[in-house]
């Protein structure tokens, strides 16, 4: 790509980011749901289930990292729906018939998704402090946790964008993205994997959500890190690479129906 091409591609992406962020800000329902649902889930786990779950620590400290990942799951799932909605709109035909880079449109949606997730994550953290979450960790730990969470959100948002592109409708996008909401429940997010039946434990241990949660827990609560940091990074970068390639090629393919 020539220098001029790079500048043009960046300008296209910036314009599309501007659009998606503006549309996301005005899509009050989605914004509201992606903040409210995780808050309700957190209240549910802390106040209703928490008393019956023994994790060896204060349950609110155990569960908050899991809630953070659940939040991003909701955020990503709504991204799939937003993208699917956009793919079925007349606007997408116009965007496709303009001489712009094919990844610009999806980049716009992904950045808007990350921004929405950052906002809801911040709100969830503030609420969790009010519910008794007492994290430790220094500035570096918090930055590392934020960085990992960001990488995870970006990867998940690209995956969601890809699902949004192949979905035939908003409803099917919602169905396709269901597993993103479900995966945290099968991880160490809410209960220690040791309490699960033996056949389920490997599923819980060898899926991306568990190492990410364990790493964040270790950084913020001070539980042992082990090698979960490296595994989490590997999962997230792999997922990101896979999702970007998948989403952009699906977008291009859909282009030439």
């Amino acid at each position, binding site marked *: 790509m020539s220098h001029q091409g790079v500048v043009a591609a960046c300008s*296209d992406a910036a314009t599309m980011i501007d659009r998606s962020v503006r549309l996301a800000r005005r899509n009050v329902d989605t914004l509201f749901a992606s903040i409210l649902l995780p808050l309700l889930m957190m209240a549910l786990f802390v106040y209703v289930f928490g008393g019956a779950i023994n994790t060896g620590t204060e349950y609110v400290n155990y569960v908050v990292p899991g809630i953070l990942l659940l939040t991003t799951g909701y955020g990503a799932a709504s991204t799939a729906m937003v993208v699917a909605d956009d793919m079925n709109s007349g606007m997408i035909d116009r965007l496709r018939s303009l001489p712009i880079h094919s990844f610009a449109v999806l980049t716009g949606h992904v950045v808007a998704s990350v921004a929405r997730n950052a906002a809801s994550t911040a709100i969830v953290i503030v609420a969790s402090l009010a519910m008794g979450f007492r994290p430790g960790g220094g500035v570096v730990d918090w930055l590392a946790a934020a960085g990992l969470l960001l990488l995870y959100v970006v990867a998940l948002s690209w995956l969601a964008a890809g699902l949004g592109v192949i979905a035939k409708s908003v409803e099917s996008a919602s169905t396709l993205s269901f597993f993103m909401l479900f995966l945290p429940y099968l991880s160490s997010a809410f209960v220690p994997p040791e309490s699960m039946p033996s056949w389920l434990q490997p599923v819980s241990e060898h899926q991306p959500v568990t190492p990410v949660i364990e790493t964040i827990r270790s950084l913020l609560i001070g539980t042992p890190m082990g090698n979960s940091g490296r595994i989490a990074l590997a999962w997230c970068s792999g997922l990101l690479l896979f999702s970007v390639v998948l989403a952009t090629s699906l977008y291009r393919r859909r282009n030439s129906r």
Partner: protein
Amino acid sequence: MIIEAIGLRKSYGANDVLSGVDLSVEEGSVLALLGPNGAGKTTAVRILTTLTRPDSGTATVAGYDVLREPARVRGAISLTGQYSAVDENQTGRENLVMVGRLMHLGRRAAQRRTAEFLEQFGLTDAMDRRVKTYSGGMRRKLDLAMSLIARPQVIFLDEPTTGLDPASRSAMWDAIVDLVRDGTTILLTTQYLEEADRLADRILLLDHGRIVASGTADSLKAQIGGERIELRFADDVQLLKATGVLDGVADELVLNVPSDGTAAHLHHVLDVLRDNGLEPERVSSHRPTLDDVFLALTA
């Protein structure tokens, strides 16, 4: 020829949407693809605008091959589709600036041209309202303005006035006529003979994925007989007498007289009848419709 297509074919499963369409459009002229729903008009436009790949056939637009150089084609054209391609949750102004920026106008230039277009299309008062509050006509105008902001060489308009009320339709026609005056090449699709008649230099009649007739509006009308006056008489005797004094075709008790549709001609016909002591029971005038064209050309 700024648009040239040869042997375009496209089918979805067993359904042949286009079965070998050839077309060419001269620079600065207006071509109308006229046909009913399902004739293949939109598919033809989607192929020429690089949105759909044909199963076979070739096409060039503005000198670029739609299959091999789609990006260059996209740089030279704009498409206003059947469903308005506007963001409902952005304002009219935001929509226009966005497209201007995507065409790599500078920020200032995009804003300046946005202001010009809002003015030209009478949308200045509504520019800071979200598009979802716009009427159908306003949306279509915004849609067209968004297509024009890049100053494309070729404009594709897919059923530009379908679903509009008569006032909006006529405003849309005026906007299109202005474009033509500026020398823009336009390919439009329509279901309305009147629209093709008003706007197009040449008309292609499309039916079941084939071109069944082509020519100017006048030549097509000539093929289907044009406008006529229907005179119904009380009995065969009167009808016979009338056929003796007027040129026309008798059908049962009705005499069909070709007409130019003017009041003067109607006066003349009635005067001739009165001078011969004839009084039709009923008089009606009949203009050719798309139905007539189709009955005549696809039967």
